[in-house]
C-alpha cells in the first residue's frame, strides 16, 4: 500500500487500507462517533477531497482537511483550518501533521508494531516527521506513526508518540474519503487547544467508557439527544458534561448526596442536565445524566 503523499497529506488523509466492500470492521475497531458539521463543512471546502461517504455501520464520519502551511515539504490545502479566522479557529496541535486513529490491524506496517519502538526522529523533513497518532483500541495506547523513506521506497513504521499534543481530544472517528479513486480510510482524533489529549483519548478507547456513553446517551428516557446533536458527538457531549460538572463541583455547585457521591444541574449547550457521579481526588466522574 502506498504511503500518503502530496495532495493526500495535504488533504489530511492517511491511507489506512485499501477500499473494501464491507468496512464495518473499521468502524467497530474505534469508538462511536458522529459527524461534526463544522468539521465536515471544512472538509467539503477543502480542494482535494471530492466527497465524504459513510460506512455501512458505525455511524457517520467526519472529514477534515488537515495540513500545516509551515510544514516542510507539505503541500498545504487551500483552506487552512487552523489559520486565524479559519474553519477551526483555536485548534492546534504541536505535531504538525495529520492526526489519525488507526486500528492496529488496519495497516500494512513494514515496521514493527511495537509500543517500545522509538518514534521516528524528526529531521525537519516531511518524511521523518511524526505523521500521525494511532490509538490502539485494545490497549488505549496512543502511538505516533510516520513514514520513512528508505532507499527511495517509503515504508511505514509505528512508534510511540514523540510529543505531547497540546490539545484535548475533541472527536474520535473514522473517515472514508473518495478522492477520485481508490477509497481510503482512516481513524481520526480531532484535538482542541488547551489540554492533554492523552487521558481523554484513552478514556474514549476503553470499553468502560464506551459502555458509559451507551448507558447515558443510548437511553432515550435521558432526553439527551439534543445535546449530542449540539455537541456533534456523544464523546463531545460527555466531555462537555464532565467539564461542566467539574466546574460546578469546583465552585460548590454540586450537592453531596452521600459520601463521595455528588449530584447537580449543569448547563450544556444551553440545556440543563442533571449529572450524578463520584468525586475521586477532586475530579468529578459522571456516573449517569439525564434531563
Amino acid at each position, binding site marked *: 500500500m502506498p504511503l500518503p503523499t502530496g495532495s493526500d497529506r495535504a488533504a489530511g488523509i492517511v491511507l489506512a487500507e485499501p477500499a473494501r466492500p464491507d468496512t464495518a470492521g473499521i468502524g467497530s475497531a474505534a469508538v462511536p462517533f458522529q459527524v461534526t458539521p463544522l468539521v465536515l463543512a471544512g472538509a467539503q471546502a477543502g480542494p482535494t477531497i471530492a466527497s465524504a461517504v459513510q460506512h455501512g455501520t458505525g455511524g457517520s464520519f467526519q472529514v477534515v482537511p488537515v495540513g500545516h502551511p509551515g510544514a516542510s515539504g507539505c503541500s498545504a490545502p487551500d483552506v487552512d483550518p487552523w489559520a486565524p479566522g479559519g474553519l477551526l479557529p483555536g485548534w492546534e496541535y504541536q505535531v504538525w501533521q495529520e492526526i489519525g486513529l488507526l486500528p492496529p490491524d488496519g495497516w500494512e506496517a513494514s515496521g514493527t508494531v511495537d509500543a517500545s519502538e522509538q518514534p521516528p526522529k524528526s529531521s525537519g523533513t516531511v518524511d521523518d516527521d511524526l505523521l500521525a497518532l494511532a490509538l490502539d483500541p485494545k490497549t488505549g495506547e496512543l502511538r505516533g506513526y510516520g513514514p520513512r523513506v528508505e532507499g527511495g521506497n517509503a515504508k511505514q513504521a509505528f512508534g510511540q508518540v514523540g510529543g505531547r499534543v497540546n490539545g484535548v481530544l475533541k472527536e474520535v472517528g473514522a473517515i472514508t474519503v473518495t478522492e477520485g479513486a481508490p477509497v481510503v480510510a482512516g481513524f481520526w482524533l480531532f484535538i482542541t487547544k488547551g489540554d492533554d489529549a492523552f487521558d481523554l483519548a484513552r478514556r474514549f478507547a476503553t470499553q468502560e467508557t464506551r459502555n458509559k456513553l451507551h448507558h447515558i446517551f443510548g437511553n432515550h*428516557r435521558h*432526553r439527551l439527544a439534543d445535546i449530542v446533536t449540539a455537541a456533534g458527538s456523544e464523546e463531545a457531549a460527555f466531555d462537555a458534561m464532565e467539564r461542566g460538572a467539574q466546574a460546578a463541583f469546583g465552585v460548590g455547585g454540586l450537592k453531596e448526596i452521600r459520601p463521595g457521591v455528588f449530584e447537580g444541574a449543569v448547563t450544556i449547550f444551553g440545556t440543563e442536565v442533571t449529572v450524578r457521579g463520584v468525586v475521586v481526588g477532586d475530579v468529578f*466522574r459522571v*456516573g449517569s445524566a439525564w434531563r
Partner: protein
Amino acid sequence: MNDSDTRLTPFEHDVLRKLLEGDHSVLAALRAQLPKCAVIERESTGCGFLTTLEPSRTSAPAVTGDQQIRITHVAGAIPGLARGAEFVLFVANGYLDQLEGFALEEEWPGTPSQYTLFFEGPRASDPTAIGLPGK
C-alpha cells in the same frame, strides 16, 4: 421472553419497592401498579442495567403532572462496587416505565444476591422528597 423472564426478579422488585417507599400519593399509586407489573425488556449496559416495565393498564395512573418524571435517590451497597450503585425509576404518563441501575465506577456485577438499599440525598431524611408537590 418467557414467563419467568417477564417477572420482576427479587432484586428488581426490592429496588422498586425501595424507590416507591414513602407516604406520598404518587408513590402510593405507583406502588399499586407493582403487583401486575411485567418486564418487557432487559438490557445490560456494562456499567448498569435497564429494565423496561409494563404495568397493567387496569391500574390507575399516578397523577404526576408531567409526562415523564423520575423517582431517584435510592442507592445500593453491593459487594464489588466500592462506590455502590444508584437507581432511577422513570415514570411515563403516570405508569411505571423503566428501572435503571448503574455503578458509579466499576462494571455492573450482574444481578446481585446480596445488597442493601438505602435512601440518599433529600430522601435520607424524608422518603417523600421526590421533587413533587403534595403528599
